């Protein structure tokens, strides 16, 4: 293409503006009415009233002895029925679980590079090295030690308040996160080890499903992997949840031989959980045992 064939800049600008000037510029009443109807059914997010002070509980779930007799069998059925947790079908160099065959899985579109505006602060975990976006009004308490229990302990994971958790917390919503390497165990492939880890997280989880449920599996972490729903909007009253009538969502994901766990509780819904998890960045090289130099929590505008 020769230079004299190029549209002069001024002409191009006029062409572009004229072309863009055409097209609909009036919102249909039905769209506005539908939006306002939905607004009427939607709660506004509360502003932060006060910082949380002091532990309200040291247990993450209701004690297992309370759940076990009435729910363990049901939870085991959940693992099968949900179908979102399965043995790997990928190659030996893959640490990620394979896609779920569940008909309920409706993967959210991947590769969203920018978090929603209300997640206007960024935290880089000094121990687990993921990056998560969160509301700048929240308080962040980074983990001070790594979680080190083996993958073979069923249902073994840290409880709220544990020093191995990154905790990000607003007035009525809390996010805790942690990760652990999933080494290849005796005679068990990496894929099977990962599946075992995710399944172990599911033991003791409740099968309830909120109105805005998460699918059993969905794309997370900017398309790096799949999230597996462990707890799907189940309700817990304080002091287990952050607030009375709070709910819990727990999502696990596996990438590059590392298992990641993100648990939300409080006044939170599935779309919010998906917004946060879609924008998470995971380290491509797995989990280093060396912490980052300093906790990195930056507020946004």
């Amino acid at each position, binding site marked *: 293409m020769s230079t004299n064939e190029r549209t002069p800049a001024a002409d191009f600008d006029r062409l572009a503006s004229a072309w863009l000037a*055409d097209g609909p510029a009036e919102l249909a009443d039905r769209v506005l009415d539908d939006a306002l109807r*939905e607004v009427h059914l939607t709660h506004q997010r509360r502003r932060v009233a006060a910082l949380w002070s002091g532990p309200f509980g040291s247990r993450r779930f209701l004690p297992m002895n309370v759940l076990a007799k009435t729910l363990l069998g049901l939870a085991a059925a959940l693992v099968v029925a949900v179908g979102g947790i399965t043995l790997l079908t990928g190659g030996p160099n893959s640490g990620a679980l394979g896609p779920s065959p569940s008909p309920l899985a409706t993967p959210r579109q991947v590769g969203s590079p920018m978090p929603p505006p209300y997640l206007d602060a960024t935290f880089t975990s000094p121990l687990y090295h993921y990056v998560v976006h969160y509301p700048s009004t929240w308080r962040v308490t980074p983990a001070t030690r790594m979680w080190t229990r083996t993958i073979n302990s069923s249902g073994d994971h840290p409880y709220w308040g544990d020093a191995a958790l990154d905790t990000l917390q607003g007035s009525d919503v809390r996010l805790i996160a942690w990760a652990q390497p999933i080494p290849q165990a005796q005679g068990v492939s990496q894929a099977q080890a990962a599946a075992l880890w995710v399944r172990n997280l599911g033991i003791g989880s409740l099968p309830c499903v909120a109105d805005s449920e998460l699918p059993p599996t969905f794309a997370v972490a900017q398309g790096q992997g799949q999230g597996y729903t462990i707890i799907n909007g189940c309700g817990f009253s304080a002091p287990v949840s952050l607030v009375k009538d709070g709910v819990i969502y727990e999502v696990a994901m596996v990438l590059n031989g590392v298992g990641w766990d993100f648990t939300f509780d409080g006044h939170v819904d599935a779309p919010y959980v998906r917004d946060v998890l879609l924008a998470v960045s995971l380290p491509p090289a797995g989990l280093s045992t060396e912490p980052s130099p300093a906790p990195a929590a930056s507020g946004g505008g």
Partner: protein
Amino acid sequence: MIPALVERARAGDEEAFASLARGAGDRLLAIAYRILRDLALAEDAVQQTLVLAWRELPGLRDVDRFDAWLHRLLVHACYREARRSRRWAANVRVLPIDGPSASDAGLASVVVRDQLERGFRRLPAEQRAVFVFHHYLGLTLPEIADELGVPLGTVKSRLHYATNTLRAALEADLRSPIQPSREHLA
């Protein structure tokens, strides 16, 4: 008046929010359509934006920035809509529904419009948004950076690539065969 409405809506006044929504709806639809080039997707994006704005309004610290904040929510909704949809789009000439306005007669012929349309559809949503904000809303690049919450360099880069793509579309050989092709909105 707008800041007062925003304050009331922020405090939970649905009627105040409805007034804001009615005032902004047309503008939001116009912007969304010009980014997405699909009325149904644009309407979905606007609806999502309004609901999200209601939900998140308590977090808006500066009521004077309501419009810019709303634009940013809309653009993100457009990104989601663009990525949600994948479709086959025959790469054929598309006649516009509305012809050029009298003042633009001679500037935007049907052929040029078609070239721009096809070139625009090849752009990722992020570049489309910057292009629309610059050429439709008339915002400067720093203003766009501020509204979208991205660095100025990113805005410049996106506009540069969008402009180059559309220029190339305008200067392409019109006699090249038209083939049905799969196009992604994002």
